[in-house]
């Protein structure tokens, strides 16, 4: 019986080895060799938890850049790092960018002209009389951007402005797309100069709407290197091509503080509240 067993299993093994060898010859299809490498870095549990049919499919898509390694829920962080490292040939070369908000009109300084009632999302409020906010360009404070950020980089401050944590932000651009007012812009993290206002009204009229709005007075233009800042249709605009010439003098005479010199997060003085404590 021992012999029989050895023969049967050895035979079955041999037979299938022959099949596989033949299949390997006849049926071999070229593939990106990196797929195999990435596949071998995956847990190979073929559990399907990533939503893809099996680890190999995941590897294929990862090589094509269609999924992020971390979307493999079973794998460890180290494994994700390793795969990212293996695939991300040019990672580390680009300058890190972060999302910056071009509005400082929190609920304490920018008044509402009407009482908005309805769906508490910016997208919905923007469709209803601009959400009732006095400033038609400003942040509605209903946190669409916070919800859309997969990296929990955004928290709403208690005066209803999104505060981006520059460490967590990956410049994925989701908030840029989500904001119905188009208030976010992705800037290199080492750009310090920013106009936190998009209100096109100029002069003192704008102050009725928001105390920290840009009045287009032009003082920053005078104080900055030529070409760096200009006033265009009621608001100061920075030409970041000239960013190397930027210095903090430009912000010093701004009567409202609409233009700021950033180091780190915006609105640093405003304490950020956690989700559960917000009304």
């Amino acid at each position: 019986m021992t012999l029989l067993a050895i023969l049967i299993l050895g035979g079955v093994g041999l037979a299938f080895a022959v099949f596989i060898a033949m299949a390997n010859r006849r049926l071999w299809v070229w593939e990106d060799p990196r797929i195999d490498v990435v596949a071998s870095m995956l847990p190979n549990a073929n559990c399907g938890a990533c939503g893809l049919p099996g680890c190999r499919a995941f590897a294929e898509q990862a090589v094509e850049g269609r999924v992020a390694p971390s979307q493999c829920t079973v794998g460890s962080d180290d494994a994700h790092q390793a795969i990212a490292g293996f695939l991300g040939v040019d990672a580390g070369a680009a300058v890190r960018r972060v999302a910056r908000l071009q509005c400082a009109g929190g609920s304490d300084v920018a008044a509402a002209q009407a009482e908005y009632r309805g769906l508490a999302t910016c997208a919905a409020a923007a469709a209803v009389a601009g959400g009732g906010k006095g400033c038609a360009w400003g942040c509605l404070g209903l946190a669409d951007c916070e919800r859309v950020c997969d990296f929990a980089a955004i928290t709403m401050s208690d005066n209803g402005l999104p505060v981006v944590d520059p460490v967590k932000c990956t410049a994925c651009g989701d908030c840029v797309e989500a904001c119905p007012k188009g208030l976010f812009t992705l800037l290199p993290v080492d750009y310090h100069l920013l106009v936190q206002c998009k209100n096109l009204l100029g002069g003192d009229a704008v102050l009725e709407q928001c105390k920290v709005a840009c009045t287009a007075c032009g003082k920053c233009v005078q104080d900055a290197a030529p070409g760096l800042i200009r006033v265009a249709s009621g608001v100061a605009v920075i030409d970041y091509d000239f960013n190397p010439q930027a210095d903090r003098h430009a912000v010093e005479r701004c009567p409202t503080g609409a233009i700021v010199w950033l180091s780190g997060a915006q609105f640093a003085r405003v304490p950020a509240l956690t989700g559960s404590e917000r009304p």
Partner: protein
Amino acid sequence: MTRTGFRHGVHPREEKGLTSGLPIRRMPFPDEIVLPLRQHAGNPAKLCVRTGDHVERGDPVGLADGWVSVPVHASAAGTVTDIGWWPHPDGSMAMSVRIAVDRYAPQVARPRRVPRWEGLSTDAVVRAVQDAGVVGLGGAAFPTHVKLAPPPGVTVHTLIINGAECEPYLTSDHRTMAEYPARVLFGIRVMMHAMRVNKCVVGVERNKPDAIAALRQALPSDLDIAILPLTVKYPQGAEKMLIQAVTGIEVPSGKLPVSVGVVVQNVGSVAAIGEVFETGLPLIERIVTVSGHGLRRPANLIVPVGTKLRDLLAFCDGVTADAAEVILGGPMMGQAQANLDAPVLKGTTGVVVLERHETRLDKVYPCIHCGRCLEACPVFLNPSLLGDFARVARWDDMAEQHLADCMLCGSCAYVCPSNIPLAQMFQAGKLALRRARAGTP
């Protein structure tokens, strides 16, 4: 389905009794007129005056910028005091021309030649209509001359005049038909002439018997014009619903009415055309229903375009103590106003003031999948599912569920027992999709 209706739809309380019996009256000129350059679909008008200029009533302050665009005319004589951002009824700020009305001006337009329509070619009629700044008065404010000139290759066989006025409260079209049937029919005559169309149907909901009677009485014998009483149901006046009720044809999804040989024009718009060829005056005033339980004295008024809502409401003796919401348009599709400095536009059909208890402040419940919205939606969408997607911002899935076919009529949100602001969510979805498509700003 019967020829005089469409499937689905809703029956909101009409509330038209507040103004349907009141004759049209004229509102005096206010002290200031504000004319946004963006009052119509298409490109905003190009500014053609400067601060300090004096304008006479009917002078252009902005000129058409391209084919799908119309000029904007001063609705009163006075002085341009400012050109800048001003609250627009849609909630944004718009470039507007402010005119201090000259209190002592005679307010007669400069003498002008009244075009003689009989001899005019289509092109000439179209140009005259564009120059007069006529846009659709049914609400969308689409430049009317564009519809007069169908694209080459399509023939229009029927002109449908939209006298449904299915929105609650509003009676401006009703009063127009009842009081000025001759002008409406004259406008139709000009349009049929210009478009070389032999058949015209005027669709009027059955709840306006006096309008139907007045039109029938004034019908000319030489034209094929039928007055068709329609089922009373919202949104009977929506273009595609009206076309189905009148002709039995469903306009294909994503296509314009011209693709089935039909052009729809609002009663007010044809009356405006009639006026252009009667008096030569451009579109500088329109008939507005000012109504609602929050208003002291409802009325149907001829209002100069650019009159601020504040002045309009004051003329109607102001609002009641409980008034809370001011809506431009009807309560089903109209826009709530945050700022009463916003002016009446060419497309403003009415102003409705609601009291606090009439507004939709009730609690919103989760969707209980009752299916009522599906039974209400006149274009057979699944608002319940669309709403589910909207809540989690899955805009692309909404697009796949035919969000583009939604006309934001609000029937779904009207019937929803859970008080879900479905139409608002859909509008947000449409805006988000448009933003995504245009690339981020």
